[in-house]
């Protein structure tokens, strides 16, 4: 939000009865390399657009308030909470969901590492963890500092402390955190 609310209409003593009719709008973006044209209720989150309209159900709805990270997608190269953004705000965007990172017969290295290291138990948070994990390693490579980076002038390194801090927006109720750290560390080392 970037501004204050405009004053409500001043001309009537009572506010006009609010109708709650849906308002439709169109949006075009690319999801996992495929162009998508949608007509949506303006209220539709990017997460609901993917799950309910495109039937890409890999991204999960946990809290729907940006607190759990289960909905994490990579939009224009950056991880975001897909539940806290409107689909219609992403005209022309390049969106990658867990389905776009890899498939069962062609796993992304991070997906393979999660399997190898048991980086999950129930699996509900896993698509968000993996999207976030892929983006976190890119953020470190790009030199973006974190709360635990000791020297703001130096390039951040892939350490356990850095991974734990940067992954704090992805909650795992099963508590697979230590295995997630191992999986991400392995992927980072394989790349180095």
């Amino acid at each position, binding site marked *: 939000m*970037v*501004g204050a609310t405009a004053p409500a209409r001043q001309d009537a003593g009572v506010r006009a009865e609010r109708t709650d009719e849906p308002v439709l709008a169109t949006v075009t973006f690319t999801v996992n390399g495929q162009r998508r044209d949608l007509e949506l209720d303006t*209220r539709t989150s990017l997460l609901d657009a993917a799950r309910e309209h495109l039937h890409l159900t890999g991204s999960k709805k946990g809290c729907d308030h940006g607190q759990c990270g289960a909905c994490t997608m990579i939009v224009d190269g950056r991880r975001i909470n897909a539940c806290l953004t409107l689909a219609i705000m992403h005209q022309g965007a390049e969106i990658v969901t867990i389905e776009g990172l890899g498939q069962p017969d062609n796993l992304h290295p991070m997906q393979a590492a999660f399997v190898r290291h048991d980086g999950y138990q129930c699996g509900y948070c896993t698509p968000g963890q993996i999207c976030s994990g892929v983006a976190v390693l890119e953020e470190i490579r790009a030199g973006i500092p974190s709360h635990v980076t000791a020297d703001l002038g130096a390039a951040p390194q892939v350490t356990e402390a850095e991974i734990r801090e940067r992954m704090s927006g992805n909650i795992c109720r099963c508590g697979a955190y230590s295995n997630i750290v191992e999986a991400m560390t392995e992927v980072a080392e394989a790349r180095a």
Partner: protein
Amino acid sequence: MKSFTYERPSTPAEAAAAVARTPEAKFIAGGTNLLDLMKLQIETPRHLVDVNGLGLDAVEPTEDGGLRIGALVRNTDLAAHPRVRTDYGVLARALLAGASGQLRNKATTAGNLLQRTRCPYFYDTAQACNKRRPGSGCSALDGVSRQLAVIGASDACIATHPGDMAVAMRVLDATVETVDAAGTERRIPIADFHRLPGDDPARDTTLAPGALITAVTLPKPVAGTHIYRKVRDRASYAYALVSVAAILTRDGTGHVAFGGVAPKPWRVEAAEADLPKGARAVTAQVFADAKPTPENAYKLKLAERTLGAALNQARA
């Protein structure tokens, strides 16, 4: 969520005009706080003006050696900016102490300033809250107040400003730049931007209705160790119970603002002369008018100790 119409203007003037002419319109930038509140029907705009296409995303040097930060610069980009990391470390540190990586990628400079309180009674629509529903009362006064304000509050509201970024901007003497539908530009010192609740807690800021934030400017850098210390219930991704934004020299002089304690970033410049005497001498003045509840009185001691830790850090 209540339904709304939507538009995406291409200039700041058009955006301000769109909000001015449309009843119950709001700007939306990152949306991370506004959409959260819309889902709960705490915010119910009828029209959203998406400002993401306006530019306003540059970080540029100013003529006097300072920095001008566009309203739409994302928190991640601001924290990672070379000039911010080198010259305004307290700001980089405050940004990195806030929210999660996903949220910082979306959240903007202007939106961060305008984020609303996380007082649990503001969020719970079954409770009385003068900020959410003026005149309904304040359930927090006799409620769970552990997280809430110890100073600057009123009998109508004891909510805190939840942010970290604004606390650093307060110690840096930032200025908020705005434009309205008539094209009138205004420069608001950060000290005057957030307001105390008094008997009108619904208004968080002095921003004029319909005005659009275009930038935040920082004066030229202040020498010293830049520190942001945040005390919270878990190590990451939690709001401050108390935070300290400080710029300190080795001899103990400097500047300090506190977060998590008041409806706005809390700074008492007159107390800063006593920084060389130690934390207690400063916090005794900064919090002289505090009216804590039994549940949040711990924040006064915590503020003193957090400042003490910052002073030790600066001397190390």
